[in-house]
């Protein structure tokens, strides 16, 4: 909201400089965003809170300034000369729907002279961001800015012959051309002003073009009415039109300001456009609104604020806002004027007192009372740990929760993939952000693509975030997933320790992570998954339950994401992982007897996986076998086609004795025998 200080000065003396005023009213809840000097005037740009729509009227704003500065409020006095005719001979007002129109008043002013407004009026409007039109329209706008009551002037002679104003809901498909020359198609929820037949204004939003004030206008009908804010808001949204009037009704306009504003405008019209005022106002006000009375307890004020204000001090602040009080001991019954609909409860009055007393004058103390342990619960600790471990070797990213549904095709997901079962936004910002994600991979691939495009290479990212699955009319299911992507190499360095960030690099990170968070009974099993390389992908299982996938991204998917480098990724159900964690840390005994290591290399068929071999060795190694490590894989000239050589380091150790050569030989022999029997693996 833009406020001219010169104009405001008409209603309250401002005897401090603009910056000081701006600071004072800001600290009392009327936020001044900017102070601008314009010619002789100073303009304040206000950011009003939604509950203080009343301050869109300068008189109401002046009342605030008066309460804050202590200077007197000056409301313009009104004098109108009316003729002997009777308004009822000119217009009958009828409200067909009093829930949407609480009050409608009409005045008729005859023989006005349409011309440009005098410069003081034009300047006032210009400085408030409203374009001057002609004296009548300008006066309605001026009084609106002054009183916060939107007004509309019709050309009386263009309102048809019914001499009637009927406020009713529009008919479905009814049409009105508004002042901005747009044709508006209406529906049954919208309220219109009609001349008994056709709509002449969209209630509270904008007048009709047909009956607008033009140079040829002679007689006018002045509307001052009160429309239900929520309905004005709906209509204004539906037709895509926000006006100074609709903004005010949305925020709430004082139903008891209707007559004051009508008279004030009439007075100015008489002054600036001549004319004859027909006696009386056609005022329909089916249910006059009563003032609210709120009980205010001095004790409650101090209990809530942590202050020690006296009843006198409280009284002083309330009176400064022109509230009427009845004192009952240390309590008050406060009569709330209808221009302050934001005050509904005792706490609202306490806020009034607090802001006028000054928030800065309230002490700052810490709560006393019961202590609490606080801290993270187990699930929160787990997530913190899960993040911390991954963040040692990868950068955490944060991506939007909404994605483009087209990525499912880019990811080569089958048509019946459950990942396509998405929660859709009813009003997305764009198609690219229109569905809630069901997996983290597409945005992680976007992160790779974007970074590579900016010549950032050697990338490793992870994200922990929610994915969403529809659950009919209920709230969607939200599950946490953890996803990671890597591409490129470890950092270039002069030591030539350079490792490709490939499947096994990422698997190493994942295994380390699983181990540290305490999940041990998992299995990696070769698998084929959409989006992933068919020969370089594994699912991660715990007791045959799939908890995630790891693999190299399918080259066609990389093409779809415009990525020219190989990328490996994993994605796991984090909540599942949490549920499966069973292991508590229990120390294993450390033996004082020495360990014996043996290396074995075996030749076996290509398709036999390393994990089968390791499992076989573990099963048959007896309790002496402490550890099995794969340290070499060879295929090539030295072994037959279709075969490979795998080498293992076996570590034997006994808890209670030093192992003899014979003990170890026996154990190794047994392992080799079983490998040959079960897997047809031969010692190389």
């Amino acid at each position, binding site marked *: 909201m833009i406020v001219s200080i010169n104009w405001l000065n008409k209603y309250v003396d401002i005897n401090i400089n603009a910056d000081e005023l701006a600071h004072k009213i*800001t*600290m009392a*809840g009327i*936020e001044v965003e900017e102070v601008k000097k314009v010619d002789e005037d100073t303009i304040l740009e206000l950011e009003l809170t*939604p*509950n203080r729509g009343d301050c869109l009227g300068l008189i109401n704003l002046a009342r605030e300034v008066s309460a804050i500065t202590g200077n007197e409020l000056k409301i313009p006095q009104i004098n109108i000369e009316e003729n002997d005719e009777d308004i009822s001979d000119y217009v009958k007002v009828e409200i067909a729907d009093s829930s949407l129109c609480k009050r409608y008043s009409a005045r008729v002013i005859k023989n006005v002279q349409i011309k440009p407004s005098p410069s003081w009026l034009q300047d006032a409007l210009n400085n408030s961001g409203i374009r001057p039109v002609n004296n009548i329209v300008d006066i309605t706008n001026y009084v609106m800015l002054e009183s916060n009551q939107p007004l509309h002037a019709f050309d009386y002679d263009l309102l048809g012959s019914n001499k009637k104003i009927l406020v009713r809901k529009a008919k479905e498909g009814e049409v009105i051309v508004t002042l901005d020359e747009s044709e508006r198609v209406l529906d049954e929820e919208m309220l219109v002003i009609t001349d008994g037949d056709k709509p002449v204004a969209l209630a509270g939003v904008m007048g009709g073009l047909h009956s607008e004030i033009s140079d040829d206008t002679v007689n006018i009908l002045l509307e001052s009415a009160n429309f239900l804010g*929520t309905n004005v*808001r709906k209509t204004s949204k539906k037709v895509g039109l926000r006006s100074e009037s609709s903004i005010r009704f*949305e925020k709430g306009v004082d139903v008891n300001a209707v007559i004051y504003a009508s008279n004030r405008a009439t007075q100015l019209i008489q002054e600036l456009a001549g004319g004859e005022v027909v006696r009386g106002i056609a005022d329909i006000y089916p249910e006059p609104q009563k003032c609210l009375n709120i009980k205010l307890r001095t004790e409650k004020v101090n*209990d*809530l*604020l*942590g*202050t020690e204000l006296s009843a006198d001090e409280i009284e002083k602040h309330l009176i400064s806002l022109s509230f009427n009080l009845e004192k009952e001991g240390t309590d008050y019954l406060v009569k709330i004027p209808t221009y302050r609909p934001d005050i509904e*409860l005792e706490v609202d009055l306490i*806020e009034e007192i607090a*802001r006028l007393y000054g*928030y800065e004058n309230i*002490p*700052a*103390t*810490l*709560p006393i*009372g*019961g202590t*609490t*342990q*606080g*801290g993270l*619960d187990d699930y*929160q600790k787990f997530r*913190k740990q899960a993040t911390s471990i991954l963040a040692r*070797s990868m*950068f*955490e*990213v*944060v*991506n939007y*929760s*909404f994605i483009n549904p087209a990525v499912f095709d880019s990811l080569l997901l089958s048509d019946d993939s459950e990942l396509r079962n998405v*929660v*859709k936004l*009813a009003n*997305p*910002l764009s198609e690219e*952000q229109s569905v809630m994600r069901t997996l983290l991979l597409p945005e992680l691939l976007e*992160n790779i693509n*974007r*970074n590579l495009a900016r010549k*950032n290479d050697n990338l*490793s990212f992870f994200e922990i975030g*929610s994915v969403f699955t529809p659950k009919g009319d209920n*709230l*969607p299911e*939200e599950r946490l997933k953890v996803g990671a992507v890597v591409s490129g190499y*470890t*950092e270039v*360095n002069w*030591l030539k*320790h350079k490792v490709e960030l490939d499947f096994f690099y990422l698997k190493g990170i994942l295994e380390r992570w699983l181990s540290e968070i305490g999940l041990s009974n998992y299995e990696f099993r070769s698998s084929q998954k959409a989006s992933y390389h068919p020969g370089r992908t594994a699912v991660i299982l715990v007791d045959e339950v799939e908890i995630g996938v790891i693999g190299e991204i399918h080259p066609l998917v990389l093409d779809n994401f415009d990525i020219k480098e190989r990328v490996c990724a994993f994605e796991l159900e984090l909540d599942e992982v949490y549920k499966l964690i069973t292991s508590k840390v229990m120390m294993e005994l450390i033996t004082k007897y020495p360990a014996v290591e043996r290396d074995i290399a075996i030749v076996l068929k290509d398709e036999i996986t390393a994990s089968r071999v390791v499992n076989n060795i573990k099963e048959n190694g007896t309790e002496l076998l402490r550890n099995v490590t794969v340290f070499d894989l060879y295929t090539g000239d030295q072994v037959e086609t279709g075969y490979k050589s795998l080498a293992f380091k076996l570590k034997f150790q006994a808890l209670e004795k030093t192992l003899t050569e014979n003990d170890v030989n026996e154990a190794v022999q047994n392992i080799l025998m079983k490998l040959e029997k079960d897997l047809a693996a031969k010692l190389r």
Partner: protein
Amino acid sequence: MLVNLKKIKERVELKLTDINSMNDLNELKVKMLGRKGEITLLLRSLKDLPVEQRGKVGKLGNEVKGEVEKLISLKEQDIKNHVLNNRLINEAIDVTLPGLPIQHGAKHPLTQMAEEIKEIFMGLGFSIAEGPEIELDYYNFEALNIPRNHPARDMQDSFYISEDIVLRTHTSPVQVRTMEKLAPKLPVKIIVPGKVYRRDDDATHSPMFQQVEGLVIDEKITFANLKGTLMLFAHQVFGDDVKARYRPSYFPFTEPSAEMDISCVNCKGSGCRVCSHTGWVEILGAGMIDPRVLIYGGYDPEKVTGFAFGMGIERIAMLKYGVNDLRLFFDNDKRFLEQF
């Protein structure tokens, strides 16, 4: 013989000056002191001497042997030192070459910021409460005193899934969910971190961002307690010299409501671009819980009071880390992420 002995010593001394390697030294050692070494043989031949000479010569012989042994051992130490020194010299490296880069990573700055904020409040006895990101209109609005068509809904243009389901526009719905769960237990002290969504996308607004919300309910909680708690928070995050001010504001779910400004961390309050030359930057909204919200949550506003506050983690992180563009947080550029 006496002369011989003296000469032997002189010869050894002379030879040692030419010896530089352990091999040569060992050779000399064998030649002199070995089983068939010159000195060994000489001493062995003592028995052939007349008895009266044996004592004198023997004594001298043993002296010479001792001296030779000492000379050789000194030389041995000398050579070892020399070899070691040479090795150490040869092994010198350019210590200014960079170390092996360990593959590293980092938590996202927003995660780091959220953790810092959570830890401050956990130290004050707060627990962490969480709730769904997709929320019932009831919890996101109605129970927070924002009925349908309330003008305050304009403040937070929302993403809808259906008429009744919305992407939460703030973490405040968790206030009511927590109250429902805990009522009438006291005190309630929770911090609610999480992602929130508003239908806004420009240089200073992101359609998704993160908030931390705080809630305290007990008997006799005051606005002064709110100020004290927030002041402590601001000092911990931004340092003890930061100043704060509170402006009256409006939130449908608190009354009285306030916005908290701190003295600009960039210019220390003298005015700069970050604070639009006001010296102050807004960091959060807060207030005393509206009695209607307490009732929704199952508490009696005549018996208990409470305060709530909420802040954008991005906002705090931007001020704390000097991040000049909100969008950087969701851009996930490695050059940005590496800095935290």
